[in-house]
């Protein structure tokens, strides 16, 4: 499985490198696949509402009303109908790109199984919504889909097994058509909204809105497409003929040719088999999750930083349970939601390396596998290893971005955290006062944090707009923040080298005497 992840991820990383050049980090569509899908759903909803107003939900009038929408007022109706179709198709592309990306990035296992798991029925709903939409046009394609869908349903042993007779040999009733309209216009969309809500319910600060430029670019692309190639119907549905040639929407209707060739048993087998595989993927193979963050009530002052910053809603503030009357609340961690990213550690107000200098550094919340005391110890060791090299740099990075070992060299020490969001800003000041001439903060690219929010939170903490803030006394010019994904390995090395050259030049101009050097 790891090999599949690595191979697929390398393809994504290569594509993202190109798109980072072309779109810039902020608008790179690969970093906004989920929110882009939401945007396409909005386009589908708005265009669908327009089409619905003009649409007549009866067998006799449906086709004619769609034709009128398409041709009589093509500049609005035709474009709206086309947008409805093309935005739905675009959503399928972004959904699958999103799904594969999360899979290859290994962001679907452990406590993140829930979002993956709930995404599977959302996929089904998307496909069913698309299929039922094509029924409503009531052209030859709709008739073909109706008959083929009925064949699929009739095959199931739990049904009465004669649904297909509604479409051959007898007139299709208006009531059946009303049912289909109800399903497409109300039941499935409501189900979809519900499933999407469930899908994102275990993450906080959800990015529902794609960047404006990216949304507008996509919308303009779809409008131009709608003008150049308007969506049109097949010939009207008739029971006397079967279609010889069909222009299927392969994004939604790909199962039907398979059904014709191999029969409903195989079509169900493939669909259900794929669904089961997707559902079970988070546990294939099973693995032991990292231990969750643990609250230390002795030092938790109930500041709420962990609950505010946790990207997965694992930390929350609850009434105090230890009787300390000066604090109303305490932090609580739900292990079922904790990814052990350590962002709560970086958010803890007590997370300051200057405290408890001669004993274990205890803060309100910690990761059992990587305590903040261990981080301070690693920092001290790293600073020690820098010796008296010129341009001494300590690099704080994360385990999921550019490989930090490749930037390690004489004069450059490296510490890797589970997520850069685990780094309390006070550690930057600490490193600079304890011997480093410069500090580099690096991690996943902006908008692409493995744990969703790490780099964004660090930026806000350093900018002084989020607690815990970087001390005002800290020399910002000696801190380099450079987000570097796996595709930016070379750029990171070059950037650190340039920073080091600058530090050495600055040192020659105005020597910085570190606290440790002073002491010696």
């Amino acid at each position, binding site marked *: 499985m790891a090999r599949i992840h690595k191979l697929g991820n390398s393809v994504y990383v290569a594509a993202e490198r190109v798109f980072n050049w*072309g779109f810039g980090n902020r608008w790179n569509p690969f970093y906004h696949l989920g929110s882009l899908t939401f945007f396409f759903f909005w386009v589908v909803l708005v265009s669908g509402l327009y089409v619905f107003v003009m649409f007549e939900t009866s067998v006799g009038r449906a086709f004619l009303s769609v034709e009128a929408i398409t041709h009589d007022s093509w500049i609005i109706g035709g474009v709206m109908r086309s947008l409805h179709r093309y935005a739905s198709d675009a959503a399928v592309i972004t959904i699958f790109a999103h799904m594969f990306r999360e899979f290859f990035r290994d962001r679907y296992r452990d406590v993140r199984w829930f979002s993956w798991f709930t995404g599977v029925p959302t996929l089904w709903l998307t496909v069913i919504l698309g299929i039922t939409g094509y029924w409503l046009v009531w052209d030859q394609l709709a008739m073909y889909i109706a008959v083929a869908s009925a*064949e699929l349903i009739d095959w199931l042993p739990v049904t009465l097994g004669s649904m*297909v*007779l509604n479409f051959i040999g007898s007139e299709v009733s208006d009531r059946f058509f009303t049912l289909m309209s109800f399903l497409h216009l109300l039941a499935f969309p409501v189900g979809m909204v519900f499933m999407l809500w469930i899908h994102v319910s275990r993450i906080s600060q959800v990015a529902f809105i794609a960047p404006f430029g990216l949304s507008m670019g996509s919308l303009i692309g*779809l409008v131009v497409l709608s003008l150049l190639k308007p969506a049109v119907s097949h010939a009207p549905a008739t029971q006397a003929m079967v279609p010889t040639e*069909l222009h*299927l929407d*392969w994004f939604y209707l790909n199962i039907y040719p398979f059904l014709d060739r191999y029969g409903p048993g195989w079509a169900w087998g493939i669909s259900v088999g794929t669904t089961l595989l997707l559902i079970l993927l988070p546990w294939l193979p099973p693995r032991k999750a990292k231990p969750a963050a643990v609250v230390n009530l002795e030092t938790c002052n109930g500041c709420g930083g962990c609950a505010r910053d946790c990207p997965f809603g694992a930390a929350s503030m609850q009434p105090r349970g230890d009787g300390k009357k000066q604090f109303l609340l305490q932090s609580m961690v739900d292990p079922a939601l904790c990814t052990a990213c350590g962002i709560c550690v970086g958010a803890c107000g007590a997370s300051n390396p200057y405290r408890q200098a001669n004993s274990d550094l205890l803060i309100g919340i910690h990761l059992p596998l990587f305590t903040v005391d261990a981080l301070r110890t690693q920092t001290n060791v790293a600073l020690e290893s820098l010796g008296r090299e010129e341009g001494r740099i300590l690099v704080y990075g994360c385990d999921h971005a550019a490989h930090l070992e490749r930037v390690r060299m004489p004069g450059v020490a490296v510490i890797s955290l589970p997520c850069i969001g685990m780094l309390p800003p006070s550690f930057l000041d600490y490193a600079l006062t304890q011997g480093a001439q410069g500090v580099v903060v690096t991690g996943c690219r902006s908008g692409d944090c493995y744990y969703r929010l790490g780099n964004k939170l660090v930026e806000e903490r350093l900018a002084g707009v989020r607690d815990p803030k970087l001390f005002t006394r800290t020399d910002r010019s000696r801190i380099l923040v450079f987000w570097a994904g796996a595709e930016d390995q070379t750029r990171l090395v070059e950037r650190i080298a340039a920073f080091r050259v600058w530090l050495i030049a600055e040192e020659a101009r105005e020597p910085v005497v570190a606290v440790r050097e002073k002491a010696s």
Partner: protein
Amino acid sequence: MRHIGSYLFQAVAYALFAVVIAYFSTDPAYHYLRPGEAEVRLAFKHAAALREPCHKRTQEELLKLPPNMRKPMACSRARSPIVVELEMDGKNLARATFPAPGLHGDGSAFVYDKFPVPVGEHLLTVRMNDSVTATGFPFQVSEKRVLQPGQLLVIGFDDTLQTFTFH
């Protein structure tokens, strides 16, 4: 300030995205039938004869039953499977058995199958046996039909008239 090349790249990326959607939203065309083909479908529901004939209960049998259930005739619920044959121009297209559905095997059998056939004039013969006690095919109809390209000919069974229909 972004480089002009990056804007060009964006334009190309959006265009490619649109081209992929434009193409796969309608193409490649799917040929359900080949040119020069029509389709014949067998499609009907039919309640077959009971598997065992009803018999008149004896006085002894009636007395064993509760008073409110003493119907003079005893009938089993299970129905016979249906055997259907379809021939075209003397050649067998299909021969299949359709069991009666339901927990007690007492439902109407659903017969459904479809066959692409070459266009032109054909003699179609359909037969059905719906009783385990009957021999041969008590129901049989032959019709000569001229099929056009893409035409759908549905062969059904009219329970009221007790005969096959071609439409």
